[in-house]
């Protein structure tokens, strides 16, 4: 393959259009937001993008495996409620207890969804719609009103310098690399590892064609369950960030993130039919999505229209990459004769 055809292939790739849109959004935001390149603004932007990025990557894993998770928002809320219910203010060790209990809860959440989707073969939308109320119910039981206790060091998931007992070098480190970025990197590392194992390969196979995956001898239900549990791990990371930031749990805080994460995954090129797309491009989708809300915020669009504009821009972004794919097909660059 010569250089030019490689370039051509690269440009005709729909992922290229996503990168273009991302760069466009980035530039627009940089123009509109004053101090965009100031350190504080950068850290703040990363902070505000982190939850959606993590939730989108998790959702992407489930969608690729052929599922869809409508319970991620309530699951996030539930995890914050569990964390803040187990922790006791002024008892540092209770923070560790909370981590263990909440992680167990996260895995349980993934397993319940996985059992419904994989083993009971209930349509994913229905299972997770139902479980979303279960998570919400438990969360409301634990924490009828927002609040709860946290230990001081839990702020390390948001701002290390706020932790009084942290050594100076850690505080300095936290100033250079914000914890939210580390959480995102943790998520990336998690998927990087998974994608290089059989599980990662099988998630694509099951989502792409579960019948033939089954006939090849893959335990499809177990793979779908694992996908749900990986999603839960991503949600868990987001929950850590939220509790670190807000120092409280809230049974309703996660709700708006559910559909945003799905939409962002689609913007990132994850096919809702399963089996197609890249989790790292889901991250890019989440970035595009986040930049859109920044742009709307900074563009002085009247409050009343902000939501409306947000919706329109997302549709335009998806349609643009769709049209791009179509037009590059037609120009015959994909000399695919089927």
């Amino acid at each position, binding site marked *: 393959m010569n250089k030019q055809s490689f370039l051509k292939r690269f440009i005709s790739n729909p992922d290229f259009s996503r990168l273009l849109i991302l760069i466009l959004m980035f530039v627009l935001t940089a123009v509109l937001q004053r101090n965009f390149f100031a350190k504080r603004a950068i850290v703040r932007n990363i902070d505000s993008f982190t939850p959606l990025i993590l939730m989108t990557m998790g959702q992407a894993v489930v969608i690729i495996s052929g599922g869809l998770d409508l319970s991620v928002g309530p699951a996030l809320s539930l995890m914050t409620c569990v964390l803040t219910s187990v922790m006791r203010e002024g008892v540092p060790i209770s923070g560790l207890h909370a981590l263990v209990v909440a992680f167990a809860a996260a895995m349980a959440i993934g397993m319940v969804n996985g059992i419904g989707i994989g083993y009971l073969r209930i349509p994913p939308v229905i299972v997770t719609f139902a479980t979303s109320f279960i998570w919400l119910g438990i969360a409301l039981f634990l924490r009828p009103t927002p609040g709860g206790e946290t230990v001081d060091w839990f702020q390390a998931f948001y701002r290390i310098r706020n932790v009084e007992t942290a050594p100076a070098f850690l505080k300095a480190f936290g100033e250079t690399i914000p914890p939210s970025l580390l959480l995102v990197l943790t998520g990336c590392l998690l998927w990087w*590892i998974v994608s*290089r*194992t*059989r599980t*990662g*390969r099988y998630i*694509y*196979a099951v*989502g*792409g*064609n579960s*019948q*033939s*995956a089954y*006939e*090849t*001898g*893959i335990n499809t239900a177990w793979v779908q369950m694992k996908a749900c549990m990986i999603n839960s791990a991503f949600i868990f990371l987001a929950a850590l960030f939220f509790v670190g930031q807000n120092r409280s749990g809230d049974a309703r805080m996660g709700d708006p993130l559910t559909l945003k994460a799905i939409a962002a995954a689609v913007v990132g090129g994850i096919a809702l039919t399963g*089996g*197609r797309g890249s989790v790292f491009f889901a991250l890019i989708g989440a970035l595009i999505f986040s930049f859109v809300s920044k742009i709307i915020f900074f563009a002085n669009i009247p409050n009343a229209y902000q939501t409306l504009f947000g919706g329109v821009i997302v549709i335009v972004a998806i349609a643009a990459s769709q049209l791009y794919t179509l037009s590059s*097909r*037609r*120009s*015959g660059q*994909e*000399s*695919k*004769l*089927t």
Partner: protein
Amino acid sequence: MTILEARGIRKHFGGVVALDGANLTCKQGKITGLLGANGSGKSTMSKIITGVYSADAGEITYNGRAVRYHSPNEAKQAGIAMVFQNMSLVADLTVCQNIVLGAEKTRGLFLDNKAAAQLSKEIVDQLLPGLDVRRMVHELNPGEMQVVEIAKAISTNPRLLILDEPTAALEQAQVKSLFDTMRRLVSKGVAIVFTSHRLWEVMEICDEAVIFRNGRNVADLDFSREVKDPEKIVSFITGEAGKATVERTRRKENREIVLRVSNMNYGSCIRDVSFDLKRGEILGIGGLAGQGQHELMLALAGSYSGVTGEVELHGKKIRLNKPASAIRNSILLVPGDRQLEGLFLGHSVFTNLIFPKLGLKAQPLFTPEKKYRRESEKIVDTLSIVTHNLDMPVNSLSGGNQQKVVVGKWLAFDTNVLLLADPAKGVDVGAKRDLYEYIVGQVAENRMSVVLYASDNEELIEYCDRLLIMYEGRIVATMEGEEITDDAIVATSMRVR
């Protein structure tokens, strides 16, 4: 040495008996042909052996022990691999990932992609040199997909390999290399079961043949002792004496031109294609698989909007930018993949037959159900579609009868041009004859003209008045009458630019 023996296998689905005491014996180092019409129980037998279905009665001995597998995976571990008729590949994985799927080697925690690529390349190179194992499966053409499918089965080092119509999607060069691979496997002691509707393939490659009709064995032929007599085999398959093809005399006289296509272009798939179609003519489109024939058929049917060039019907310029405009001009398509493009599988024969009518502009507000049922019954009669009644879901019909329904849905229309895209693919000898009998009859009465694309050269030779050979989207040769021979087709198809 007998490696597998299936005795007295019975299987019914609902009220339909698929197998009624059928037997099959496979010997080490031998290729056994499994023949029969669609719905005669060939696929069911293969699927029972590999554990996709469980038999109602009968027993299977494998390596001298009675076995009963519950999943294809169990059978695979015992050394029985099967290439399924319907594609079992994951479209969004690469060739190599598909071949090793389920049997990935790991280095520590991570997948060993290098070993996988090497293994896949070794196998693929025997079957189709030049196929890049890193390509995504959804980018491949049907023939290449079939090759991957076969490679996947071979990669498990089976002792018994079941190939269920592996050649249906292959072009002849690919069939040749498949046969070479099969011979190599057989010489290593593998037993192979081979099914195909193309008799010459069976006669060329098989050592013995078992013929099924209505779920029973009607003949066990040993080709080392018996002569290979196609007419006898056909009579075993169909249960009646007769030829496999419909007699047709080629027409040469000059007739008026019905369809004139000039300088048609579509991306890199169709390049500068021009041809005339005369009244009452069968015009063949041939060549290697995937040279733009399929796209040409779809372009003529109005499936693409970006096609350039001129199309004239009876001397009047027409635009074919959407399927509706093609249908309005009575250019009707029988698509290649009937299950995906031609039918509403879960719906009844009746619904499928009348559906095109519902799109007509002059459609009454309320559907005249009774009248349409009468018309549908007539269609079922004309094409001798085998179905219990009009309300049977179309996917309960055998492949050949499904194909007849696809043709039947256009019967109520005046047809100018009928586009047939590989109409006999996966259709048995009997149904194929019925189908061509109807088409040849219509053409003889000048009721319509036909553009026929077939992947099997036999059909082109048998039925076409003229034949166009396509290569890389261009028409590279035109043959007429007696010039149309297998040698000529192969020679012009393989032409190197």
